[in-house]
């Protein structure tokens, strides 16, 4: 990875430009995935909520209405989109740069990782004065990503396809791939409940994710939000 140092040039008034280091962190496929995924999740959560608690009844003949059908169609379509992009994302974890791999595992046995993780916890509980600079995710962010996003999302995909197989039938590929869910919970009512709870887990993650992204953008020493658009992470000062 290369760090481009911008020379501190002085303008006509003798004022120096701010010195920034920039690193290309999030490659295009990762950025595209991030936003498609975000919109897919938003769509899925909204439609999913209305599948669990449907809107007030539509008047008229059944043949003239298809509201629940459309809501479910959008839910399924968004789910398929999410999965297609998730597959691309997993592929990119193999062929992309190191940052593309971060959210898929936690270096659990690395003492160094947990030391830095602890420092991040101290920083977020206001006990450390200065955050450490990180290219990509900091250790705490990485473990949270894995625990509150990667795992729940995999769970949502598995339960989602298992539930879809109920309608698609016992001969469908959805049942062949995800029917094992019914071995864990023989009553699909439980899978419905867990899928529903999973939505709230993802929602809680989203809240924390957005808050921390905004906060870090302001407080820490690197850019966060713009990086997911441009891919470039800027560092605000030269100190280590």
């Amino acid at each position, binding site marked *: 990875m290369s760090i481009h140092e911008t020379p501190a040039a002085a303008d006509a008034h003798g004022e120096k430009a701010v010195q920034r280091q920039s690193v290309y962190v999030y490659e295009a496929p990762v950025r595209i995935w991030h936003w498609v995924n975000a919109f897919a999740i938003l769509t899925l959560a909204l439609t999913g909520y209305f599948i669990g608690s*449907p809107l*007030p009844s539509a008047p008229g003949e059944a043949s003239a209405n*298809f509201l629940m*059908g459309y809501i479910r169609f959008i839910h399924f379509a968004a789910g398929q989109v999410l999965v297609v992009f998730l597959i691309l994302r997993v592929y990119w974890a193999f062929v992309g740069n190191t940052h593309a791999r971060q959210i898929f595992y936690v270096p659990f046995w690395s003492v160094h990782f947990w030391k830095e993780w602890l420092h991040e916890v101290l920083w977020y509980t*206001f006990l450390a004065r200065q955050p450490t600079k990180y290219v990509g995710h900091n250790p705490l962010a990485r473990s949270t990503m894995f625990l509150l996003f990667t795992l729940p999302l995999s769970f949502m995909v598995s339960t989602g396809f298992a539930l879809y197989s109920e309608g698609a039938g016992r001969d469908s590929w959805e049942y062949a791939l995800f029917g094992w869910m019914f071995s864990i919970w*023989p*009553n699909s009512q439980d899978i419905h*409940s867990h899928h529903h709870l999973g939505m709230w887990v993802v929602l809680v993650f989203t809240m924390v994710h957005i*808050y921390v992204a905004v906060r870090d953008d302001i407080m820490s020493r690197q850019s966060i939000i713009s990086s997911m658009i441009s891919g470039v992470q800027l560092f605000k000062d030269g100190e280590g």
Partner: protein
Amino acid sequence: MATAETFYDVIRRQGITRRSFTKFCSVTAASLGLGPAAATAMAEALETKERVPVIWMHGLECTCCSESFIRSANPLVKDVVLSMISLDYDDTIMAAAGHRAEAILEETKEKYKGKYILAVEGNPPLKEDGMFCIDGGRPFVEKLKWMAEDAMAVIAWGTCASWGCVQSAKPNPTQATPIDKVVLDKPIIKVPGCPPTAEVMTGVVTFITTFGKLPDVDRQGRPKMFYSQRIHDKCYRRPHFDAGQFVEEWDDDGARKGHCLYKMGCKGPTTYNVCSIMRWNGGVSFPIQSGHGCIGCSEDGFWDNGTFYDRLTTIHQFGIEANADKVGMAAAGVVGGAIAAHAAVTAVKRVTIKREKADS
């Protein structure tokens, strides 16, 4: 008990005509989804094969399976199957009693080693060495294991035998346990339902006794031919679900018009059974048709999933009456509060640090 007796011999002796017999084969083949050729195969098997003895045992149960069984839509089905069974053993409906009845078990176990079918209605309680259910002078769990040793296969009748049903609902004081957790070394076919549909029961017995093997079962051990589709997917009210037309209250306009009972807690979307296809009492009706949601009686733990009238399942782990939305909203509220507090502290800290910097 004649050893080389066939089904055909039995029913002819009971005065059933050949015409009725052929009809029975056609109807049963159709209900099993096997097509016209199978009817002939079935007739031939019943005429030539030595009949398979069936031993019907009762553990902790309410006899609703038996009640359902003897009300089978096609009386012939009941007569045929029932007469075959009563010849051997069913302590509820057979004529023999006491030691004479128990002697039949010994005899069958010896004579038809590895050839008889053990049909179990209800389940054994395991606590206190099974003392909560004594059958023929000994714990039912012992009798069950003893008879299962030499059986060809075991049929678990109803939700009791398949999943545990009401006697195993929390806190399950007698530790009532489904058959497949007690009998581990025999093929077990689950026929859940409280009770199962009569035609399903006769269909399963006929299939096994005719072809001498178990029908294909799904992941949960239920016969695929009867349990691969949800009530919801074959429900005649399904168009109202897709249209978004629901019964909102028991006596509203939607209820009168026969709208979908989803919001009233119908468990059709999570219940695998044939009620919406075959219906009950000879195709007269089924719960949803009479205006009440499905309670999911053929599903695992249906007693422990909150009321029958809520769409979202009650989650007991949290100690209070809650469902996924209530739990989720509470969690989101707590996290939201934490975020707000954290943001406030962050802002204060930032101001103080700036001041410190300005001072120094």
